[in-house]
């Protein structure tokens, strides 16, 4: 029997596999394809204090081995989440974690405080890295002072496990991670999407309504893996790795680079059952390699 349990500060995952915010709905959308109880956690849609309509269509462009999106945090707000969604998903047999976003510090703080009161939400993922909203989002996540400000403010009102999701659109992601750690983050997750764009040569117009969007999918994996490695070397708190993970082998690579857990994002679109397969595949890898505890893999890259 391979031991798969991962302990992050105040948050226990039955295995290192989670699903990334914005790619897994509220979990319900995937219940036909995956036994949610076989996952370490699900991170539900980005939630803001107030309702957001998101950006206009078109919001998506397919790219080689990936896609760009500029959805722009469409969601119905914290009240709707608490009153309508939470009662439906609170008893899933996995960690239900809410990704929280805002356009100013007060909104982050108010939304996080509301989540703190929900018994069956053991953690939040603070999104300071959305590239698709004009105010807030990535604006906080690209400078050390910005991230310190928002993380500190939320830390004062949020008492459970706080993951801070980092943007890759920075010069030195390790410095940003250290700032998040110093401000009170319990863990960091990375990477959010890479800022990119697409143009239709025939019409000479941008493909996306917002011109730019976030790149995700298999194509970003080498960049994500490198950043996870750099951050894991720099910080003492656990690192959650994501970016292009599409198989158990990909997931193991992130663990070896220093991630304590991983998230599956865009790959859910291509194979809606992939998250469960990755969880099983990590165990298969461990059995094949004679690894008794998944934790042994964390940071286990042989240099």
């Amino acid at each position: 029997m391979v031991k798969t349990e991962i302990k992050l500060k105040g948050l226990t995952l039955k295995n290192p596999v989670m699903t990334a915010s914005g790619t897994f709905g509220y979990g319900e959308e995937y219940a036909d394809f995956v036994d949610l109880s076989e996952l370490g956690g699900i991170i539900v849609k980005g939630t803001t204090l107030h309702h957001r309509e998101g950006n206009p269509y078109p919001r998506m462009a397919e790219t080689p081995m990936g896609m760009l999106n500029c959805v722009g945090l469409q969601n119905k707000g914290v009240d709707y989440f608490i009153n309508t969604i939470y009662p439906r998903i609170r008893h899933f047999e996995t960690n239900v974690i809410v990704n929280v976003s805002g356009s100013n510090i007060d909104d982050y703080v108010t939304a996080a405080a509301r989540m703190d009161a929900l018994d069956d939400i053991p953690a939040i993922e603070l999104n300071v890295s959305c590239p698709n909203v004009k105010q807030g989002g990535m604006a906080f996540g690209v400078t050390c002072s910005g991230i310190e400000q928002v993380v500190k403010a939320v830390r004062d009102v949020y008492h459970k496990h706080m993951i801070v999701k980092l943007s890759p659109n920075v010069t030195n992601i390790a410095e940003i991670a250290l700032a998040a750690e110093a401000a009170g983050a319990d863990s960091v997750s990375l990477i959010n999407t890479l800022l990119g764009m697409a143009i239709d040569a025939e019409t000479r117009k941008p493909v996306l309504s917002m011109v730019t969007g976030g790149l995700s999918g298999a194509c970003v994996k080498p960049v994500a893996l490198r950043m996870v490695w750099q951050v894991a070397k720099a910080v003492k708190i656990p690192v959650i790795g994501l970016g292009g993970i599409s198989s158990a082998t990909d997931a193991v690579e992130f663990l070896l680079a220093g991630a304590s857990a991983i998230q599956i994002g865009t790959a859910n679109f291509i194979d809606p059952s992939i998250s469960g397969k990755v969880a099983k595949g990590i165990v298969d890898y461990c059995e094949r390699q004679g690894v008794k505890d998944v934790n042994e893999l964390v940071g286990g890259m042989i240099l």
Partner: protein
Amino acid sequence: MKQIIDFVIVEKQSFSRAALLKLKSSTPLPDIWGGQFVNVRVDGCDKAYLRRPISVHDVDYPNNTIDLLIQEKHEGTKTLCALSVGARVNIVLPLGNGFTMPEENDNVLLVGGGIGIAPLLYFAKTFRKDARPCVSTGVHFLLGGRTRDDLMLLDRFRAVGDVFVTTNDGSMGEKGFVTDHSLWNTMEINKIYACGPMPMMKAVAKKARERGIWCEVSLENQMACGIGACLCCVENTKEGNLCVCKEGPVFNIERLLW
């Protein structure tokens, strides 16, 4: 319940810019409603990372097969159209809401443009549970294409209802767009179902509104997940941005802003 099933192509018919694939399921088919779609994985194409949403053209439960009529549009659909009999195809289904079933005495007009004709056949075949042709209850197809080459498989439609045709170049049926056809002046219709290019559906919706006829349209906004998770394929409606893949693809025109 939605499923991921490996199908095998058991029959194939090629057209100038499209292909009809008959796909046999390895497990019993789930119930599929007319107007629903499937999401097809494209293997072996560098330029198709995401699945391709394709409407269901026909279903044969006893033989466990579905028919997909696929237009070659870009690299992904070209790859699918180039597949041979015996090829394995991984499909997520059934997806979306589907059309609303007509009432007993409705006089129904199903308007299809280009590849948009595809879902209308299966939907019309489900009007009667025994899937018998039901011309007597008033099923009329109005199918439009740029040229006669766009109008495929008309015999299949004729077996289910009356077929009227328009082509832009006049190579088949009446010349012009579907909304130019003479039947609009002669026929009493009380339900319209439309699928096709956006300008065609908007023109049909306008006609329906002018005459106060109930009308549903099937949209095909670009999708990533196909199951309501990514929020990429939204249509801005009177109720805000709705996912075409989950809340649609079929919308009553009264819910739309156009």
